[in-house]
């Protein structure tokens, strides 16, 4: 018993001690020392473990971080985003961002994927921004007000459409350089991570909209939202209108297409099921042992 009481507080506090030290060290690097001489020594240069995987979610537990960029990487990427509209998703933007954050030019090597890291960070941070807007409650109220409805009357599909458009509008400020980013994302080595990020976005949009599919439609809906969003992104880069009116019309049309296709497939499925049940019932009524 005495042994237990001696070890118990120790077990609780030992893990937290080295962590708090590392944490303060990481913060000191980026905040208290404006020009770190050798940032590579204290931060990991290995590729951040990416792949934002969805796991068990609970309102009672903190959300697991989707990414694991270190503090220094986050600082560089955050300040590099400010240079994206002018310089595009390029090494120049990264270097300027590193300088703004008080790092040496060479510290862009902290980001092993270079420009692609910047693109991923843009996508992930916009996704987080979208989630923030919804969780603070303002976005759906605005969408409902635009349609002249009460917030509870919004259907899931209207919410999904609103979120897709909102996410596209976030891209408006980098519209000029977005084609380059799309080209980067479509490089062979970058495709898996790009698709993962696209799936994470589609999944977030559907979850935030209150979609509660628990069967195969879980997959088809995410596929549909991904397809609509990805194609609308391409359309957006060529959309000359100021408020993305053409893109909005494009998204509307894609949703109509989706509805037509879904109705067709559901109709075919129901017809086949009906035929099958009839055949079985007929067989049983004839006395077949089936």
């Amino acid at each position, binding site marked *: 018993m005495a042994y237990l009481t001696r070890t118990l507080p120790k077990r609780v506090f030992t893990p937290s001690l080295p962590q*708090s030290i590392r944490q303060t060290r990481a913060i000191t690097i980026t*905040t208290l020392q404006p020009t770190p001489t050798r940032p590579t020594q204290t931060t990991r240069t290995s590729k951040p473990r990416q792949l934002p995987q969805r*796991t068990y979610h*609970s309102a*009672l537990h903190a959300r697991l971080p989707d990414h694991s960029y270190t503090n220094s990487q*986050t600082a560089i990427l955050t300040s590099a985003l400010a240079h994206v509209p002018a310089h595009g998703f390029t090494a120049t933007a990264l270097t300027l961002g590193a300088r703004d954050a008080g790092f040496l030019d060479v510290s862009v090597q902290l980001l092993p994927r270079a420009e692609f890291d910047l693109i991923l960070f843009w996508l992930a941070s916009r996704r987080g921004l979208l989630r923030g807007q919804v969780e603070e409650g303002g976005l759906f109220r605005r969408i409902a007000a635009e349609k002249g409805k009460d917030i509870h009357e919004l259907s899931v599909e209207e919410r999904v459409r609103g979120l897709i458009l909102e996410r596209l509008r976030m891209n408006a400020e980098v519209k000029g350089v977005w084609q380059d980013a799309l080209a980067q994302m479509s490089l062979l080595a970058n495709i898996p991570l790009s698709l993962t990020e696209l799936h994470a976005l589609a999944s977030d949009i559907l979850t935030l909209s209150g979609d509660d599919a628990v069967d195969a439609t879980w997959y088809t809906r995410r596929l549909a939202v991904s397809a609509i969003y990805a194609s609308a992104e391409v359309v957006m880069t060529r959309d000359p209108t100021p408020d993305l009116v053409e893109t909005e019309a494009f998204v509307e049309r894609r949703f109509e297409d989706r509805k037509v296709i879904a109705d067709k497939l559901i109709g075919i499925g129901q017809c086949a099921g009906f035929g099958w049940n009839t055949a079985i019932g007929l067989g049983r009524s004839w006395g077949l042992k089936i």
Partner: protein
Amino acid sequence: MLSSPILRRCALTHCRHSAPAATPIFLDFLAPSTFKHGQCRQASTTAGTPGGSKPLYVLSKEQREFMDSALRVNQAGEIAATLIYKAQTPQIVRSYPHLRPLMKHMYDQEAGHLKTFNHLIAKHQIRPTAMSPAWEVAATFLGWSTAALGREAAMACTEAVETEIGSHYNDQVREILSWEADAERRGEELDEELKEMLATFRRIRDEELEHLDHAVANDSKEAKPYDPLVDVIRFGCRAAIKISEKV
């Protein structure tokens, strides 16, 4: 949710010092890697339950992954179970009308379990298994073919399936109980959802084992090629569980 204000505050102050960001950025999903889960235990001391006195037991990444695959498998299993009973019922009831109430009772319980797990999957934002179309076909075929072999074979099928499912639920209950013991050692307690889930798993396990008893009481051991039949079905169940955990 509980530690995110801390994270955000830390991230934002850090942001303000390092660079005046032009656009607001929510960094709580990009929490710095210094917040490794598993080392994150100290967060639980700051986060108390609303009414209780003990701090909340924080789930690690592995534990969340366990819950993720556990709930996915359970939902897939209940889909299959309902379909098996649904496919067996017409043929069994045709030859043995006295079994109608029993089949209906077992089917209703399985449908209730499925509803429970559908709710849990949606609530905890868990990906349902991608194999569900395949499992649906396989389960319907299994139910139909064993019922075609006769009442004993159908009951042997129930026995095999419920044995596997019962022990599977048992493993999950044991795992959550080990977390509870761990929490006890740390002076923390499991959150309400987990406690409720533990109770649910126990209830469902008992109901599955009750089906097993019904199957044995209805001559499942009399099935003609008993051993090969039961072995094949149990092997299939185990394989399906393993696949559903991942996919």
